[in-house]
């Protein structure tokens, strides 16, 4: 029984960004290779997994959910992929060689030859450009929630049939991570273009170059992938992967326990994991992921436009207690100093984080919550917020990370004399209210598809980033972000990133509460799969085998 439990936060390897800046990635001759000391792989067999629901559709570019990504990942390839042994490293996938120009503004991808899509057509530079453009500037009727990943791209061109040149507006050390995000699958232009024109997109089919292809899909019952014999790399070991959309966690856990499935990929709940942990022959994994839970005040609404009120909210939070209660329910066990995920080389020091109100209640920092709350009440009084002020925390009912955070917050805020209610809405209503600014406070859990600063800070903490639900506007912060993004010197960049975090934390635009770790569990018969901090990475499953 291997456990990477809640307390084990050091499990994430230190990210070494220096490797990417201005360097070229060496080509690996025979596809991705790594050694996993799990005995000799065996061919054949079916991997039965469950991840908690039906994928709404298969168009991974348009999707923001792991439900879609997990099912489609084995069928698609990306330009580069995460090294299963070293999360900070990228290894070649479709691009066998990648060159970055000395000024950092031109990136050239040399595509592998002889790569075929599932429908038999060969992969060309056009497919890559179409796919990336589809993400960057989606055609009419197609939506792309991750435009920001490629926001720095100025233009792209094909040089010959197998070379893609990307011109950036400014140098970006994180660009390769951004372009290789697990959602940025390369699709077939021939297949996607006509469907996009009809507005359908790739919702109903998967045509990729990945090691598996979709062979059966029954909504509510099963999604079956079979080995793609025309895969360009080493053929997958498994004959089949079957995804079962078992919605309830308890049922999913029970199915795993009853050996009806071999692996469960999504167990936020500690209760279920606890049960599974007792089972011998089961490998249970929990690791921090770049998923944070932030309290987001609506800056456009009084009194949250007042920084004192926001600071008071931060002061009112007993973060250790939050982690203790919401942790087991939503996997929100983890914490980090600053805006970057746990284990990030850019994390702030204890002394640095402690200067911000309320963050001293993070585990191990010895904050005095009672004193904090006194201070918070004083701040509220200064800001003219009356005692018993009515506050509504908006949340959605379907995910514990949202709902249970809101419940915990409501109990905590009562201690500073606020009259708090939780407004639980269904997903559709929730997002409509959130995006139209029809809320006071939201406890929002955001899962990032990558942990590089450009991803985390860009999406989460810029005025124009996709997660600015509180609707603040701060040019100096945005400029600071752009500055760090283009800085090629790692040391200088690290300093800028720290500067950005300190500047942001001072504003209390968003108040970090905890980081979420997602649990997965599988029987020990499942070999060759490694769970990475980014839950979306390394889900191609081509090196997984069953040792029955």
């Amino acid at each position, binding site marked *: 029984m291997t456990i990477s439990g809640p307390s084990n936060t050091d499990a994430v390897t230190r990210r070494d960004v220096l490797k990417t800046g201005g360097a070229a990635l060496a080509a690996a001759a025979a596809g991705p290779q790594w050694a996993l000391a799990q005995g000799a792989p065996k061919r054949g067999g079916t991997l*039965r997994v*469950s991840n908690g629901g*039906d994928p*709404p*559709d298969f168009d991974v570019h*348009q*999707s*923001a*959910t792991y439900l879609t990504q997990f099912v489609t990942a084995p069928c698609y390839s990306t330009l580069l992929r995460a090294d299963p042994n070293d999360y900070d490293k990228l290894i070649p996938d479709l691009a066998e060689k990648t060159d970055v120009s000395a000024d950092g503004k031109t990136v050239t991808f040399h595509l592998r030859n002889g790569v075929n899509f599932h429908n038999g057509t060969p992969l060309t530079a056009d497919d890559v450009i179409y796919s990336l453009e589809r993400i960057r500037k*989606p055609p*009419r*009727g*197609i*939506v*792309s*929630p*991750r*435009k*920001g990943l490629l926001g720095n791209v100025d233009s792209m061109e094909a040089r010959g049939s197998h070379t893609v040149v990307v011109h950036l507006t400014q140098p970006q050390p994180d660009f390769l991570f951004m372009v290789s995000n697990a959602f940025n699958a390369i699709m077939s232009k021939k297949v996607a273009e006509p469907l996009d024109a009809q*507005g*359908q997109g790739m*919702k*109903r089919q998967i045509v990729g170059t990945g090691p598996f292809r979709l062979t059966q899909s*029954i*909504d*509510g*019952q*099963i999604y079956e992938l079979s080995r793609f014999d025309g895969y360009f790399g080493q053929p997958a070991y498994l004959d089949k992967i079957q995804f*079962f959309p*078992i*919605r*309830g966690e*308890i*049922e999913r856990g*029970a*199915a795993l*326990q*009853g050996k*009806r*499935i071999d692996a469960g990929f999504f167990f936020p709940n500690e209760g279920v994991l606890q049960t599974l942990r007792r089972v011998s022959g089961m490998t249970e994994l929990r690791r921090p992921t770049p998923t944070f839970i932030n309290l987001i005040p609506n800056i456009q609404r009084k009194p949250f436009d007042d920084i004192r009120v926001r600071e008071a909210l931060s002061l009112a939070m007993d973060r250790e207690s939050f982690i203790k209660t919401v942790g087991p329910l939503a996997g929100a066990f983890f914490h980090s100093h600053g805006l970057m995920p746990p284990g990030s080389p850019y994390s702030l020091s204890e002394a640095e984080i402690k200067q911000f109100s309320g963050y001293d209640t993070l585990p191990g920092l010895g904050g005095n919550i009672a004193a904090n709350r006194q201070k918070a009440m004083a701040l509220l009084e200064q800001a003219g917020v009356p005692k018993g002020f009515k506050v509504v925390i908006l949340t959605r009912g*379907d995910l514990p990370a949202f709902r249970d955070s809101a419940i915990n917050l409501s109990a905590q805020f009562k201690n500073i004399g606020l009259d708090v209610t939780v407004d639980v809405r*269904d*997903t*559709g*209503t*929730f*997002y*409509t*209210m959130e*995006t139209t600014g029809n809320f006071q406070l939201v406890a929002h859990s*955001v899962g990032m598809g990558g942990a590089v600063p450009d991803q985390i800070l860009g*999406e989460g903490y810029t005025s124009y*980033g*996709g*997660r600015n*639900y509180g609707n603040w506007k701060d040019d100096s912060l945005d400029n600071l972000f752009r500055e760090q993004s283009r800085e090629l010197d790692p040391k200088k960049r690290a300093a800028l990133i720290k500067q950005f975090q300190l500047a942001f934390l001072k504003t209390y635009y968003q108040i970090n509460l905890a980081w979420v770790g997602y649990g997965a569990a599988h029987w020990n018969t499942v070999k060759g799969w490694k769970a990475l901090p980014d839950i979306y990475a390394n889900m191609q499953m081509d090196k997984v085998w069953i040792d029955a």
Partner: protein
Amino acid sequence: MFSFIVQRLMVGIVTLFGVAVMVFLIMRVIPGDAAVMLSGAGAGAVSEEELAQVRTQMGLDRPLVVQFVDWAGHVARLDLGTSLRTGNPVFDDITRRFPYTLQIVVMATLIAVFLGIPAGVLSARYAGTWIDQLLQALSIGGLAAPSFWVGLILILGLVSLFQWSAPLLWEPFWVSPVKSFTQLIWPALAVGLRQLALIARMTRSIMLEVLGEDYIRTARAKGLSEWHVVIRHGLSNGLLPVVTLIGFEFSALFGGLIITEAVFSVPGLGQYVVASILNRDYPAAQGIVLVLAGIVVLGNLTVDLIYGWLDPRTRLRGAET
């Protein structure tokens, strides 16, 4: 009789039209629309402009009346449209899921009938004794227990006692009847409990009433055995209201299954309709609500017909007013 059926069908169609209007309006009034939901809700970086394009693509930017007329026109041609979520024709989605729901309903009804009627008869036969009191207490209890709670408790028991877990693949009945039966027996039990209790109670009170009638006395006077009297004369004459109850409950069951299917994660209509509403999948939600309402209407019509057939007195009901 024929004109009676036609008349009732017409009323049914009017009813369905009302349901169509209601579900259409309700779906549009719920905040959040299909475009938001289907555009990776919550991804955050989807602009209002992109959403507007998606709405245009789905035809959601047209005036409501136009949308309704368009939809109603297709429904009239038995085309329920294409699910925005699954991309399949709604009709196909429904027909694929319908067998599971139907099977649960049928099994639940059978459980209820085959246990409920004997229980009721037994209760009436031994009215006032401890058997009666026990059965009555059980049936009142059965009515009071929320079916999804019963489901949860069933699951808890099954998991902890038998390491049971919800099946991964729910076999359709025609593929493997035995397997399908064993898979669906638990949800059927959870929902059937209530029907069982209802039928037992109804049977009991009707039997008591019937057993007081003159012809039963006559039968008794003839020296027939008590059981013979109860079964042959009592039950066969008291069946009518029980049939009505079964008929009404049969159609009401379809609606009530929603929650039980969610508890057991059965891929039936219940899960589909909830997912459709929550995902603002307009065509799917509208289509399935219409189908469920159609079942209720047909169920009521069937009950009326059975009634007319069993009891000639009611046959001319349509002509009275």
